[in-house]
């Protein structure tokens, strides 16, 4: 059967082009790979190569024709022994002989199937926190110890878990979070890396793609900006790009946000940044118990988890239940204190301002419900909405920059889902819209403070 040669698409966006020149004429024999014509697109002049062998039977579109639509037959190729008479019923090479019947609407075109409605994003429901059996001993533990214990327990439990990062082994961690791990697990599983964040983050993702479960420690998250391409383009997207065949079951962890007086390049919060990325989970604990339970969950999670710690919280102590295996659900907020007059939502170090503000407000007779978000992505909006339905007022507190912040995201969602319940505009307390200054007085001004939170709650209560 003669074969129709179609006008080819020579770029992802080309819809038509000019057939500027025929290199072969009617009657010429062509082999696959021979240049048969030249086509001009909006970007360049391209050569068209023959795919099949045969003799050019007829040229359908003369040289010089403009606006030739992609997929228009431009010539007919005769195969061995065929004469020009056979051209009556040419066969298009592209068309499979027995194309399965497809409903017109579903037939894939170059632009994809005809518009189907966008399916709703699936609802994720996080489990509730596990019950802590009555009589469980509560042990005062620093966040630092809680994080270390979480890693040690998971490394005992699962041989595929290992830790890598700068100074994590022999130095025992720049902030001593990996203290003792080298001694217990050895240099095979507790690995000092050179100062090469982009490289070792990629090495971690590669190892994770084979099913190992790396914990990649960044000395601070400021330095993870060197590695952010591997985190977002490799770790977060592989599962999707591979159609679910492989992903990156791993944790990227380290201190995040401002420490003290370390200035602009070492003081920023990445909660809002990573929270934008589908394919990541983002956890930012405040208490030691949450740090432990959520880090254990993050290590077990089959997805890449960004685990944002804070240097100032490392040394703070909280009660942690003494249980064999204390794991908390990622994606579930925790009500830190129940209340009726207004809701504050915060997370991580932001909670330190919120907790103090709540105590001050209590003295003034304002009963605040304080929610610790704990996970930034997926975000537990239902818990917030339920609280706002009760209190009608909402203030968010965080240290990060104010534009496109976690707080503004919460405000948007609450406005969409609980508009009728709001009695006042939502206020968002954040760090100031400036790089972190070094001078002690300016640094204080750049960070949120308890007074601002107290004032914001009074404002939404019209007091």
């Amino acid at each position, binding site marked *: 059967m003669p074969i129709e040669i179609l006008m080819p698409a020579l770029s992802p966006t080309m819809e038509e082009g000019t057939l500027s020149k025929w290199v072969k004429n009617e009657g010429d024999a062509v082999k696959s790979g021979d240049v048969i014509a030249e086509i001009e697109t909006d970007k360049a002049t391209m050569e068209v190569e023959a795919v099949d062998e045969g003799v050019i039977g007829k040229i359908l579109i003369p040289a010089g024709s403009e606006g030739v639509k992609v997929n228009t037959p431009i010539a007919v190729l005769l195969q061995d022994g065929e004469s020009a008479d056979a051209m009556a019923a040419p066969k298009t090479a592209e068309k499979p002989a027995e194309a399965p019947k497809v409903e017109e609407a579903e037939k894939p075109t170059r632009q994809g199937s005809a518009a189907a409605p966008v399916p709703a994003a699936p609802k994720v429901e996080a489990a509730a926190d596990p019950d802590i059996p009555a009589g469980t001993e509560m042990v005062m533990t620093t966040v630092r110890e809680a994080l270390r214990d979480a890693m040690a327990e998971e490394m005992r439990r699962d041989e595929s878990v290992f830790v890598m990062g700068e100074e994590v082994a022999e130095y025992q961690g720049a902030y001593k979070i990996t203290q003792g791990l080298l001694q217990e697990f050895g240099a095979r599983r507790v690995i000092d890396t050179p100062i090469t964040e982009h490289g070792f983050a990629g090495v971690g993702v590669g190892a994770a793609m084979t099913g190992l479960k790396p914990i990649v420690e960044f000395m601070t998250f400021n330095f993870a900006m*060197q590695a952010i391409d591997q985190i977002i383009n490799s770790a977060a997207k592989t599962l999707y790009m591979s159609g679910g065949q492989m992903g990156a079951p791993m944790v990227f962890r380290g201190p995040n946000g401002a420490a003290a007086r370390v200035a*602009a390049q070492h003081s920023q919060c990445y909660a809002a940044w990573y929270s934008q990325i589908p394919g990541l989970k983002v956890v930012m604990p405040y208490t030691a118990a949450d740090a432990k339970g959520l880090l254990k969950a993050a290590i077990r999670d089959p997805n890449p988890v960004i685990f944002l710690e804070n240097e100032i919280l490392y040394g703070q102590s909280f009660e942690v239940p003494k249980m064999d295996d204390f794991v908390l659900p990622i994606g579930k907020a925790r009500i830190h204190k129940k209340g009726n007059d207004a809701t504050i939502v915060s997370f991580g170090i932001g909670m330190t301002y919120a907790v103090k503000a709540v105590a001050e407000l209590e003295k003034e007779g304002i009963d605040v419900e304080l929610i610790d978000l704990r996970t930034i992505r997926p975000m537990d909006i239902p818990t917030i909405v339920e609280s706002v339905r009760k209190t009608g007022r909402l203030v968010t507190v965080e240290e990060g920059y104010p534009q496109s912040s976690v707080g503004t995201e919460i405000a948007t969602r609450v406005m969409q889902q609980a508009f009728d319940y709001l009695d006042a505009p939502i206020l968002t307390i954040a760090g100031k819209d400036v790089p972190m200054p070094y001078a002690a007085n300016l640094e204080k001004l750049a960070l949120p403070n308890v007074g601002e939170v107290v004032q914001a709650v009074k404002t939404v209560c019209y007091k």
Partner: protein
Amino acid sequence: MAPRKTASTSSRKTAAKPAKKDFNGGIIADFSKEDDLKAYREMLLIRRFEEKAGQLYGMGFIGGFCHLYIGQEAVVVGMQLALKDGDQVITGYRDHGHMLACGMSPRGVMAELTGRRGGLSKGKGGSMHMFSKEKNFYGGHGIVGAQVSLGTGLAFANRYRGNDNVSLAYFGDGAANQGQVYESFNMAALWKLPVVYIIENNRYAMGTAVSRASAQTDFSQRGASFGIPGYQVDGMDVRAVKAAADEAVEHCRSGKGPIILEMLTYRYRGHSMSDPAKYRSKDEVQKMRSEHDPIEQVRARLLERKWASEDDLKQIDKEVRDIVADSADFAQSDPEPDASELYTDILL
């Protein structure tokens, strides 16, 4: 006073024959009395300044990270002797010595360390982030390795403008493993950019000894695959540094492209003020101090050659101490920046 040109044969030998790592094999430039006195004074200023900064940190006047340069003074002082007006300098966070060597005011540096309005960045940058357009000092960078690309960009600008200025990009042995260093090497070699890459190999990156982080510990050869020549230099001997600097700067100025100088040096203090430095023995530090101290070497030479008496040196010492004391007084009494500075200098 203009530094005397060193005998070109001896300086050439320094560059061509790598100094041995025991710090003894390097070939050195002849230093005149003036050279030695100038180097002595400048190194001493850095040493005393850093000691004072350490003290003020302990007293709570300086916060955050503070990385002292004590032990490495000969590197920056020797390099600086080879520069001419318009040549640029850029480095990382261990930057106080570089700024003083570039002629930036001790008061301005110290007041920045205490976060006061008279600081070189108005108190907003702190120890790791200071700049001086006037002195062609381009920072002061907190992200390990970032200054290497930036320093390459300074050289690019010189090429672009068609001047014969050279940029010096300083970085550590740890920084030398960062990916952007090699991306920069490639562009610098490809475009023949006038940049001297100075790797200050002080044997440790925080707590990690060079051999635990680097597959190839001869950093002078890190440019080999780009055809960038490199030399190891005794970075504890200011004369060796100066000789290599002359050679390297001339190489760049004459259009031959980038060059690498690996300075074999040592930091006496911890990585930063909060590093207990348990990863090395006290003996190791003590041995380096007593046998290779860059300032003591010059001091001994000045006395031995009778270029200065003990009294002359005491006088220099006093002058240096006065400068440092003045900067410390200023840095403690200068007011903090005005609150309105919070929102300035973000955009133009």
